[in-house]
């Protein structure tokens, strides 16, 4: 059967979640999937609690996904973080919370909406006024202030209290604190351990039943807990990246910070430059002389890099540009989630030049694809973009340890001095069948050359000869076709026989996989095309994917359904099957957002 989806060019907005509150009724069996939200004011240390919980559950062999919602200010304003732990692999936020730690009333207000009926709230007595059957008030900050000497330790007090309420292994829970604060030296470790113990005492003194419920142990081994930005930094280093220049911007900064710690160990250099114009042009300079170079930024910085992208394209300088997307346009919402830079990145800069746009979906994918991106850039002498998105950049998740044996360094046509010595003539932009010219770099004898952003002849000298122009355009642009076999192939997930499909990229991987799991339970099989190369559009693979489908929901975090547009542009024949499913309110999709429209379609199409 073939239901005609709604006019394919109009994106459908994902349904907005509604409130839920309910009376307590504790689960008796250990939870196999738990999510704990910590909410308060910026500066309350919610991220610390979330991080400690993540580390604890990670040590327990569970799969973790942590998420955060903070404001673009340093202190004050509502901030929350959540830690999810699951005995099975997990890639997204849980649609509901099992526990809420609230440092103020705002946190209760925000968190209660998401609290599962069986859940409870651990509230900071004195700061939280809201009452309720499932709200337990403990004097977290008062205890921290009076007994540790600083109210800020309320976060670790809360962690201690939770460890009692959820029946944690005490030694393991303390071990996490030791690991996290041990390096810092000073009193930090002792104060935190004290705060932890005080938290446990508070629960006891309050006479709360312990544990309220427990969490099943997991069996994940050799997995690591890591954010997308960390994975990107690691991938860059392992991929042979040795030069990074950037400028701080949320949510990209931590790539620079991570590399700052790593690269100097490998004769590499990290520079924080005066602005993004400087950052990208400095990376181009480094790449030009033969260092594998990268820059990373978010929307506003990316926009500033526009001119230089074209320079790298015309001059054929290998360069990797990471875009950690956030809510746009303009300054937008600096700490919120979106995937709205895609069409900009694909068509950015005046004029036309080839580029690859890659989008990994989860931490280990980020690692692998960053390695690949550095290779691709050098092999195809082309700027390569890696699109991340806020949640993927910042949220940590459990991922298999990285497989270094798969890593392979391909320097493409970068010449060795012996090769160069044997050439009769060296032309930087020599016409070749694949459009890639052998590349010498400054310092190499006999490879002297001209590299330029002007249209040029094979030698690199300025040329406006129309015939030369036609050939040079073809030389560059053909790469989009020729490179296809080299580009990251899509991953396909789910039921091969399904007639309903998802198409997505980046962090929507998580909610889509979860929705697939949930839909399967409801008897609705689906297939998922996880696009990993967005440009050039993987036409052949998409065509095959669409063949057996009635509909493909293109899931993205933007208003206009950008990837769907791109597919239509390249494959207009695919349009009737595409249905955009978008969300653009700064929050990530959760499984129900996707389950609902699919179920509806499924019901109608029966």
């Amino acid at each position: 059967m073939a239901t005609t989806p709604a006019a394919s060019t109009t994106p459908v907005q994902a349904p907005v979640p509604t409130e839920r509150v309910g009376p307590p009724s504790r689960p008796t069996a250990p939870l196999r999937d738990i999510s704990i939200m910590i909410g308060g004011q910026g500066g309350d240390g919610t991220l610390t609690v979330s991080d400690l919980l993540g580390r604890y559950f990670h040590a327990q062999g569970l799969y973790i996904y942590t998420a955060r919602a903070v404001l673009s200010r340093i202190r004050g304003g509502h901030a929350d973080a959540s830690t999810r732990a699951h005995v099975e692999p997990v890639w997204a936020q849980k649609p509901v919370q099992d526990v809420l730690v609230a440092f103020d009333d705002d946190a209760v207000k925000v968190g209660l909406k998401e609290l599962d009926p069986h859940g409870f709230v651990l509230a900071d007595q004195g700061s939280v006024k809201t009452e309720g059957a499932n709200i337990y008030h403990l004097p977290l900050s008062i205890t921290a202030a009076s007994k540790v000497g600083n109210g800020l330790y309320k976060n670790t007090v809360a962690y201690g209290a939770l460890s009692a309420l959820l029946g944690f292994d005490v030694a393991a829970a303390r071990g996490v604190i030791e690991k996290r604060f041990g390096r810092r030296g000073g009193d930090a470790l002792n104060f935190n351990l004290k705060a932890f113990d005080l938290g446990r005492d508070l629960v006891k003194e309050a006479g709360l039943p312990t544990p309220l419920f427990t969490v099943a142990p997991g069996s994940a081994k050799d997995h690591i807990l890591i954010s997308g930005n960390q994975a990107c930094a690691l991938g860059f280093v392992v991929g042979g990246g040795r030069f990074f220049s950037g400028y701080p911007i949320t949510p990209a900064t931590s790539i620079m910070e991570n590399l700052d710690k790593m690269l100097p160990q490998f004769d590499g250099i990290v520079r924080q430059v005066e602005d993004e114009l400087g950052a990208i042009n400095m990376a181009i300079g480094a790449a030009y002389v033969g260092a594998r170079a990268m820059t990373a930024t978010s929307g506003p910085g990316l926009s500033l890099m526009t001119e230089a992208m074209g320079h790298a394209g015309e001059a054929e300088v290998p360069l990797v540009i990471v875009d950690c997307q956030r809510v746009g346009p303009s300054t937008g919402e600096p700490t919120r989630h979106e995937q709205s830079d895609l069409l900009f990145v694909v068509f950015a800069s005046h004029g036309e030049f080839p580029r690859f746009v890659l989008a990994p979906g989860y931490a280990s994918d980020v690692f692998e694809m960053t390695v690949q991106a550095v290779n691709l850039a050098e092999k195809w002498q082309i700027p390569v973009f890696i699109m991340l998105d806020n949640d993927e950049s910042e949220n940590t998740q459990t991922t298999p340890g990285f497989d270094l044996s798969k890593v392979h360094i391909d320097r493409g046509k970068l010449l060795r001095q012996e090769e160069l010595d044997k050439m009769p003539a060296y032309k930087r932009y020599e016409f070749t069948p694949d459009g890639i010219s052998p590349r010498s770099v400054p310092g190499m004898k006999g490879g002297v050359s001209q590299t330029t952003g002007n249209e040029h002849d094979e030698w690199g000298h300025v040329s406006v000869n129309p015939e030369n122009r036609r050939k040079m355009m073809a030389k560059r642009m053909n790469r989009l076709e020729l490179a296809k076999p080299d580009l990251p192939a899509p991953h396909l997930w789910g039921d091969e026989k399904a007639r309903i499909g998802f198409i997505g990229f980046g962090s929507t991987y998580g909610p889509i996989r979860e929705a697939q799991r949930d839909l399967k339970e409801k008897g609705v099989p689906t297939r998922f095309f996880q696009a990993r190369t967005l440009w050039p559009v993987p036409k052949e693979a998409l065509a095959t994917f669409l063949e057996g489908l009635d509909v493909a929901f293109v899931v993205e975090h933007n208003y206009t359904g950008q990837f769907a547009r791109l597919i239509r542009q390249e494959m207009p024949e695919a349009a009737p099957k595409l249905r955009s499913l978008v969300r653009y309110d700064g929050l990530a999709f959760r499984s129900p957002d996707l389950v609902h429209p699919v179920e509806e379609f499924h019901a109608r199409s029966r």
Partner: protein
Amino acid sequence: MPEVVKPIPATWCPGCGDFGVMAALKNSLKALSVPTEETVIVGGIGCSGGIHNFLDGYGFHSLHGRLLPTALGAKLANPKLTVVAVGGDGDGYAIGMGHFIHSLKKNVDITYIVMNNETYGLTKGQPSPTAKVGFHGNLEGPFDAVLTALSVSSAGYIARGFSGAPREAAQYITEALQYNRERRGFAFVEILSPCVTYNDTYQLWRQQVENVEKIEGYDKSDRAKAFSTVLQVKERGKIPVGQIFRVADGKGAPALDKTLLPMVERSPAATDISLEHNLPKYQKLLASLG
């Protein structure tokens, strides 16, 4: 050795001051026997910025105003190279102003030559930041790069020459390159280079240039003195030229590339990036993530 790209004859208007600057740079590179393959000329956009096409060596044609970060990136990634950035006054002091100040501040061992003709030559004669009040209706006071360079505490080598006096210009450039090779930091050399087509100032400048080094008691290692002398000379209607400032030996900010890469052999561009070479260290790094 393969046949390589040949410099093309300069495309400047006959008589353009830039010919003098090019001759000076050529002579300086020769005087210091900088090997062609270690020479990197990064050009800006403008008449001046085409210079790399007319010289031997690796040439990089950058974007308008972005030659400095590009040149710094090249040097930081491979400090063995002799990197010279060359561009116009529009390129360097208008669109490139931010990078100019920050390059002085960063203090990487490259030489930056600005061909100042007080106009945008290539776009046909609009006033540049150094243009005098009244030139094509210009209402803004002219920017003096030497004064501003003096104001940046890391700036250690500042000179101004005149393409009508190419021997002196070559001398400043040679010393600048020498200063780089000693890894002392960034060297800035402005050369007054008349645009005969849109702003022919040859006669005027020939009369106006005054070498500060010849002023009694001038001490080029005294920043405050240099600043006040430059101001005074200008008040007299003259244009201060010469080696205006050179930080005293043993003083001054450390060169960034030297701090980061004390051994030039171990640089981002030169290091072995093969997996085999790095595997144990990568494994350690991954393990540290726990």
